[in-house]
């Protein structure tokens, strides 16, 4: 029973991580650049949801549902993504990749401190997608929010997949990600495709923020945690693999939720409280990171990835 409830929570967290990691990989593939601000975009999405709900409040009888807020946030974040790319990526596109890492770190700092200046450092919560009630399946009670987050995130991931596999626009974006020179040679407007990729990636991160900030709250310094999680997801899934990033995000979220709860799930195994310190959020984070370092050490290509070597 408990396990199923935890599973639902873990999947909801993982779905939001997956949106963030997905955007990270899309930009990575399209530009070869690491977008360090992707984590801060999740944070920005969370605050954007709170601000949007406050703005819509006079127009809405009762509490504004997150489902109304979400499209507004996603669209706004897409626009922000394009503006962001004009400062963080395009002036530096012919420079070594490290220049983009630094420019995105710089803008991340600006976002964090701007959020801090506007909303302050206290944790805040955005409205739930539908309401804060529980859904009951017999004895099992799961927050409606968790289920809604899983459904919405799955829909967004499926939407991204359909965009890339079924539409001419998606094919152009994929061609750009595969080989920019070649794509330009066959007449694709590569810069527009890259700007669109930034829009998509930022919209996905913003959606993740709007989805997460009800259950998990949002504070201005959250971005670093999300970018690290996205990185771990991408490392586990194989650098550059879209499906791998989603799978990796789900895995780490499930680990984060299930691991600290192990003594509750199988109390027989952990009779005493002596190991209490081990089964905490902090220990889970440290263990997760230790596992990632081990992966990097033994399988630098990721768990599912294939080793790519540079040409000498």
């Amino acid at each position, binding site marked *: 029973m408990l396990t199923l409830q935890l599973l639902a929570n873990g999947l909801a967290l993982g779905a939001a991580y997956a949106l963030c990691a997905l955007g990270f990989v899309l930009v990575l593939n399209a530009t070869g650049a690491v977008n360090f601000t992707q984590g801060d975009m999740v944070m920005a999405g969370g605050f954007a949801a709170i601000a949007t709900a406050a703005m819509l409040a006079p127009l809405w009888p009762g509490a504004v549902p997150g489902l109304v807020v979400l499209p507004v946030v996603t669209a706004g974040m897409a626009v922000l993504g394009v503006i962001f790319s004009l400062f963080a990526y395009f002036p530096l596109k012919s420079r070594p990749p*490290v220049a983009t890492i630094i420019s995105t770190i710089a803008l*991340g700092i600006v976002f964090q*401190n701007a959020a801090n200046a506007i909303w302050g450092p206290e944790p805040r919560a955005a409205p739930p997608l539908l309401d804060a009630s529980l859904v009951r399946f017999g004895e099992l009670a799961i927050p409606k929010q968790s289920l809604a987050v899983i459904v919405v995130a799955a829909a967004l991931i499926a939407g991204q997949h359909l965009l890339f596999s079924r539409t001419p626009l998606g094919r152009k974006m994929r061609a750009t990600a595969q080989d920019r020179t070649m794509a330009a040679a066959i007449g694709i407007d590569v810069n527009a495709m890259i700007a669109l990729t930034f829009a998509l990636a930022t919209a996905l991160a913003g959606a993740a923020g709007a989805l997460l900030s009800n259950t998990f709250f949002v504070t201005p310094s959250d971005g670093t945690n999300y970018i690290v999680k996205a990185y771990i997801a991408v490392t586990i899934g194989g650098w550059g693999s879209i499906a791998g990033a989603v799978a990796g995000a789900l895995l780490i979220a499930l680990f984060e939720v299930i691991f600290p709860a192990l003594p509750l799930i199988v109390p027989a195994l952990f009779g005493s409280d002596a190991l209490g310190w081990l089964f905490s959020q902090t220990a889970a984070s440290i263990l997760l990171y230790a596992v990632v370092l081990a992966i*990097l050490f033994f399988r630098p290509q990721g768990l599912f990835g294939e080793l790519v070597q540079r040409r000498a």
Partner: protein
Amino acid sequence: MTGRLLSGINPALAFGLVVLVVWPMAFDTPYGLRLFALAGIYAIFVMGYQFVFGHAGALSLCHGTFFGLGAYFTGILGAKFGWGFPATFAASALAPVVLAAIVAAPVLRLESHYFALATLGIAQVMLLVAIKWEAVTGGANGIAGVPPIVLFGMTLARGWPTVLIVWGLVAALGLAARAVLGGLYGHALHVMRENPTAAMSLGLDVARLRFETFLLSALYAGLAGALYVHTIRVISPEALEFHAMVACLTMTVVGGRTRLAGAILGAVLLIHLPEWFRFLEHYYLIAYGLVLLATIIVAPNGLLGLVEDARRRLAPEAPPPAPFAMPLPAAARPTVPTGAILSLDGVGKRFGGLQALDAVSFDVRPGEILGLIGPNGSGKTTLVNCITGIYTPDGGGIRIAGTDVGGMPAHEIARLGVARTFQNLNLVDEMSALDNVAIARGAARHLALGTQTGATAMALARAEAMGLLEAVGAAEVAMRPCGGLAYGTKRRIEIARALALQPTLLLLDEPAAGLNESEQADLAQRLKALAGSGLTLVVIEHNMPFLLPLATRLVCLDHGQKIAEGSPRDVARNAKVVEAYLGPQEAAEVVA
């Protein structure tokens, strides 16, 4: 007389020193002096960060953690355990170095973005530990009451005494950094940063160089952290937060990544930046972010880079005179037991679905010039990369002078006496031709931290490099940066660089490409003379008029397989070879 006396003094350096003396005098308030001491502390932090980010070219994001760790060790040991300054200072220096050594194994070999994010993860973990391990760290509140610096029984007062101690350490650590980076070592880091593959092929132990710079920078960060906590007297997780790292990164980028003066300039400017942006109150970090972004776009080499560019443009300096040439010392050539200097036995290499090399076997005998031919994509360069350890072959054995080199790192293979040139020229453009070759002389003497770092080693390496440049006919461009040189000249410098290793086996990847006919004839002459002196050559070439009279034997590859081996005459007429080059249809016509 006065002219000679002043000629050794760099006017910019003198100006900078005067500013550094006048500044604290001009802002002689307790607050002004405290800021100036903090600027010195960050200057030490940044000087250390320049080792890893500026010189080794790795964007580390865990140096804030090394700084914080130094601060925490001094804070905890000083406030809770009552340790004295010398002991806490040593502990704060050591702890980050130990952590750096532990995390180095998995993270140091990662490429740029992996490395940046992996180090960020380390920083996150350490921050969590500092917040949650309340019993030791004081948790989110930290520990107050960190003692001041006490030296020889005297308590160091705030204000001027602290400023003097801090800036004295800036000077001492700056001179130490200069001693490490000034000579061949700094140049070797430059080669590694620009071109790791070339560095490895010269016998530079890239992993070791990275490790050394990582540890050195952790040491500087730890010392800076210790001084920081002595200055502000409390320790809290703030020291470990990303802000400290961003401050250091911004100072490094704004000042200039590889210049010690840049470290000081960046630290002094950015510590005072919040003063100039007081209207932003607590959100001055927004200004940090914007300054960092603007600098990376407008002045990638920092403010010092801008100043140096301007000076070069306004008053172009004549290059320094070339050194006198010196011959290389006599090399001890390893004995060749089996008769083959290079022996390939069924070498295979696969990239994903492509079998780049498929069971390639042949021997190269001492003193011969073996021509390696084959159409584009036939696996020639891949084979050279396998022999030199840039790639690890999937199967088969490679023996060099009898030693099995399977799985051996590239620099060790180079040290066995294998040198190479590259198809796509791998010289460092902004470095002079002379220094490009001089590095290889340092590498030949197993350059590492503490060896080959002095001025004498540099002078000797340059003199020997000059001799090599004369030998390949490139002496007149010795002092010019490689970037602006003609293609044929660059090829000759690459050969000089390879010869600097005093190899027994030299692998040349398309040495005649881009050369005109007289240059080709000249090159062929030189290669024949080298073979005559006992050097064994493997020459990859498409240019048959160049290769046929030069090579003593040919091997032809096609689709990763050896399809012919023998005398140049026989191989050139071999039906399979003709077919591989021309395709079956045309080959049939030619034969008919």
